[in-house]
């Protein structure tokens, strides 16, 4: 990034200062930053123990900085990778500097990646973090996009959890444009056109048996 010296009437500035003009706010209604507040407590009947309930709500600004083109690319329905102009290694997730020590942290170049990938490994989750519970069961795959040297994690949709296979071809599917937020969840993987699962086998039966109670349990989550 070239150093830009912006002159204005008030004072000299010695750093590039982005001008954020395209703003979107999709905070759910009713969510307010309260900062720190005690919201309750409980005391044991022998009065020897006390638990206090603290609520903490704070807005974070994730400043993507030099990584921003990747996340802006997601809004545009594109997967951007980076490539080292010296050794040619390519990555998604991206690196702004090359990992080869012989390239001396060479600055990388942005390249548009194909919307196709291949499963490297996978799992079927029946439990997850608080923000993900309602989406269970989740198929998580690590997949290699195009000629990337690394695998990227994301969800695989459009397939029964027991049908996932190592090496299966995938396509990248983006959410509708108005639902995208510039985050990794703007896209997911689906089996590539024409891919058919192999017939039922012992391992698939086992996964099916493990996953079925998850569907039932998720229905009970409020």
């Amino acid at each position, binding site marked *: 990034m070239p150093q830009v010296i912006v002159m204005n009437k008030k004072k000299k500035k010695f750093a590039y200062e982005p001008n954020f003009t395209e703003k979107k706010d999709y905070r759910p209604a009713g969510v307010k930053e309260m900062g720190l507040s005690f919201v309750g407590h409980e005391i*044991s009947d022998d009065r020897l*123990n006390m*638990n206090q309930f*603290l609520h*903490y709500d704070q807005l974070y600004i*994730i400043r*993507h900085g030099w*990584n921003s083109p990747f*996340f802006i690319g997601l809004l545009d329905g594109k997967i951007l990778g980076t490539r080292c102009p010296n050794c040619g*290694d390519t*990555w998604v*997730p991206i690196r702004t500097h090359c*990992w*080869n*020590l012989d390239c001396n942290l060479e600055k990388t170049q942005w390249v548009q990646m194909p919307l196709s990938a291949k499963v*490297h*490994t*996978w*799992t*079927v*989750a*029946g*439990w*997850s*973090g*608080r*923000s*993900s*519970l309602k989406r269970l*069961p*989740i198929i*998580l*795959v*690590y997949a*290699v996009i195009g000629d990337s*040297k*690394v*695998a*990227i*994690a*994301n*969800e695989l949709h459009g397939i029964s*959890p027991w049908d996932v296979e*190592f090496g299966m071809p995938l396509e990248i599917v983006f959410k509708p444009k108005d639902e995208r937020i510039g*985050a*990794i*969840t703007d896209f997911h993987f689906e089996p590539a056109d024409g891919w058919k699962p192999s017939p039922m086998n012992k391992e698939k039966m*086992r*996964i099916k048996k*493990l*996953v079925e*109670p*998850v569907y039932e349990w998720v229905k009970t989550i409020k």
Partner: protein
Amino acid sequence: MSKKVCIIGGATTPFDYGPTGFESIEGGAAECVKETRADLPDFSLRDLDFMIYSHFSVHFGHQLAPEWIIHDHLGLVGLPHFRVENGGNTGGSALYAAALAIMSGHHDVIGIVGWETMDSVSQSQGSEFIAMASDTRYELMVGGIYPIYYAAMANKWMKDNNVTEEDVASIAVKNKNNAMDNPKAQWYRTEHRYITIDDVMNSKLISYPLKKYDCCLMSRGVAFVLVCSEEYAKKVNPDGYVTIDGMGLSSCTIRAGDRLNYPSWKERYGSGYPEMTEFGACRYSAEQAYKMAGITNPLKELDFGEIHDAFSTSEAQIYKALGLADTENIAQFIRNENTTMHGQIPMNPGGGLIGYGHPVGATGLMSTIECFYQLSGMIPKKHLSKETEVAGAECGIVNSHAGTGTSISNFILRRN
């Protein structure tokens, strides 16, 4: 020539989850120090010349620099102190820092206090806090918790190594059942029962191939370890001190998918390693530790280990990374029960993370303490019976492990 590093004592609070624990963090630390003092009457807090604090997530306690509270509470104001944080390898890294300080000759007697209070939020929120040690921009919102990343790595590892769900389940059974001999272990204090491979196989799905009983416990707990020079060890615990004869620390990528073609691994071990399946940082740190301790055949020369079984599958992966087995024989190595109490190299006689618990900042110290107890002949005093004693043990390995294998340390401890 660097100075010899010794461990002369240590203790943990009981590991637990929820309101059954007695302690505050500073109260727990005080009780651990008092138990150590009861074992070592000649040790005085006045002898300490450095304190290292081992704590992972300030999210859990909602307190930045909580070590300042503990340090003050222990009456140690004036002594130098700092906190080490290195994910799940926080305890191992704190021990590494202490060892460096002794080796340099700059410090003589160092206390390490480690803790975590993971029950301050719900289990699913706690899992999400830990997953904030993934690359949050790329992985937190699509995986959500560490077991999912580990499951994806293990799924391929098990296929590549012909290891079955039942094989790894036997490791979970071993560790939970070992914990039944250990009154401070969370499994002993909560579910309190002996289990079978079927129990593991029938427990609920966490992330295929991991079920609930394949996974370690979320815990609250505190631990204290006393590390010192040999001169001090001979003065305070001449018959029971243990030496750190080897140690290694290594690193790997934060995102597991980034290690497929990582140039520095290719340079060290050739193409295709560690893949997304092996723990390269465990292999390399073990190689460093073995070299320093003069170990050429770990399977023969190590008597036992306390290793980082965050998941049954990771314990199996660690066996390989430690050089105890290879792709050809790892499945048979497990099936031969080599790592049970009656096997060639018992692993996690103290219960490990699956049985004892995993209050992150205290975990590596817990493993160190259990290894120390074995080597100093204290197991009959600390466990309920001799069933989990490795009789006559001379040499043990302590393993501490972070991220998706992102930072790993190994220590070779020997009976004096």
